[in-house]
């Protein structure tokens, strides 16, 4: 009954590295996180501030793990202003994580989505698969993990920016749609802004491709009890965050459309 990874603990940051504009990685040693699956997340606590979900963006790199945080509000700005030696509280890893599937997978990431997909890329690469990866951002300085991905994937990495400041000009979802047209993928993974993922899902469906998308909802308990992270009959915190095509189809009236706020009211998905 007593699941060690679900217990609160604190870790000291061994390093904080800036990844791109507004995004930093916090690096720490934590036994429980070493056992994470790609796609799982931690609940990260700063006393007096907040506790929020953050994907594990590197699992057991020489015993160290990471989260990678995009500053969007009070908590994430404070996380990004931490430095080596500071402490954060952790619970987890939680969630289902991705399932490794397909010989020729296509990845589509936007925003901080690469944080969650990166460990999966690394695991597949270790297993001998080199995915095709479309990495999108608004502009060149906001591309997350472009270097780390390029190192692993070489020319299988395709970069796109909304403003054309690097790589292809336009949305990652658009480029991904084009690729699905041209090439015979057997699996699609996506993580990023929900409106992007909704488009990727449409394209994958159009080509009859299986898909796994990592969703975000307002997470409180992270253990599947409070129901605040619900989308349709699923709890993002526990049944997700990774949804497959069947689950996405079941929640299609909400996916890319509406989400619950902290009070349980439905609000629009804005991006």
């Amino acid at each position, binding site marked *: 009954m007593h699941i060690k990874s679900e217990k609160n603990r604190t870790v000291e940051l061994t390093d904080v590295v800036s990844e791109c504009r507004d995004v930093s990685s916090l690096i720490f040693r934590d036994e429980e996180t070493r056992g994470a699956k790609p796609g799982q997340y931690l609940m990260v606590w700063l*006393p007096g501030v907040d506790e929020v979900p953050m994907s594990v963006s590197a699992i057991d790199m020489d015993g160290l793990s990471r989260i990678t945080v995009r500053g969007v509000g009070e908590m994430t700005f404070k996380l990004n202003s931490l430095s080596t030696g500071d402490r954060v*509280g952790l619970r987890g890893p939680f969630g289902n994580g991705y399932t490794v599937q397909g010989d020729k997978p296509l990845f589509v990431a936007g925003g901080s989505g690469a944080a969650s997909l990166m460990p999966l890329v690394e695991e597949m690469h270790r297993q001998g698969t080199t995915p095709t990866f479309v990495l999108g951002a608004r502009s060149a300085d906001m591309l997350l993990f472009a270097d780390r991905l390029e190192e692993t994937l070489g020319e299988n990495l395709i970069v796109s920016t909304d403003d054309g400041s690097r790589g292809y000009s336009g949305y990652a979802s658009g480029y991904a749609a084009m690729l699905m047209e041209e090439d015979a993928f057997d699996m699609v993974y996506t993580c990023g802004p929900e409106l992007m993922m909704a488009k990727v899902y449409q394209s994958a469906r159009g080509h009859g491709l299986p898909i796994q998308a990592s969703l975000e909802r307002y997470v*409180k308990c992270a*253990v599947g009890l*409070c129901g605040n992270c*619900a989308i349709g009959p*699923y709890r993002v915190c526990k049944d997700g965050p990774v949804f497959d095509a069947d689950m996405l189809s079941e929640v299609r009236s909400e996916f890319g459309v509406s989400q*619950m706020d902290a*009070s349980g*009211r439905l609000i629009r998905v804005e991006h």
Partner: protein
Amino acid sequence: MSKISLAVEVAGLRLRSPLMNAAGVLGMSPPILKRVYDSGAGAVVTKSIGPAPRTGHPNPTLVRVSCGALNAMGLPNPGAEYFVDEIKALKEMGVPVVASFFGGSVEEFAEVASTLSKAGADALELNASCPNVQEELGMLASDAGNVEKVTATVREETRLPLFVKLSPNVTDIKEIAMAAERGGADAITAVNTLKGMAIDINFKRPILTNTTGGLSGPAVKPVALRCVWEVAEAVDIPVIGCGGVTTWEDAIEYLLAGASALEIGTAVMTHGFEVYGQVNEGIRRYLEMNGFSGIKEVVGLAHQIGEEQDSRADRCSIRV
């Protein structure tokens, strides 16, 4: 051999199974509650709904502890008006709905009860006991007079079956249960969480934003079971057991202690939605193996023998 029915009648509400989810557990949205129902529950209980939208406490709102969880969600809810549609949606899906509710004053309790009744709920559960929120009524559940008053006022607003949910954080739960009965409650739900806390030894501060929270799960089962036992002896209305029910054996203990139905919450954390089906199945097997023809025959059975036991208990003086 035809399967034994698990149907029960609680305060006029006929349910296909004695199991419900505990209020606040998975009770935010219709599709999730539908899933609870599809997993085997006889009815679903909503999150406690108040007069106005609340976000609840900022995170952290939940901490795992030994054999349980501490939570201080702070009664997040979208407000009664908003929730009307959610209840209607559930009713359209054919799901029996118990609407849990609270207020910060006697008037608010009545107002919310009225709104939720009109929305079509099948029963109401008056949450007299949330340890995480104290408004005008203070810690309502520890004041028999207030419990009676609130219950009586709500009673006038609705003809639905009215459950009153009590707190275990009181000196004498029997007294409060009797007050609710006097106020017109149709059933007592026993119990809400035990007030507890957890401290982070590195940050040297309470983990929950609210400092204290409610303990639930297997850790509280012996206490909640005792509450059900005491309440069953104190009142004539049915008792709905709640607190740490995880296995079918737990469920049987509650039935024997006098519960006519059960709410299961924290076990979903460890056993998933499957817990409802598993407990149903276990109860059914138990009924069969013990030659019972229905749940009703089991309810309160342990009290009969309890009296003989009591007399032996007094032998504390020297007998060697």
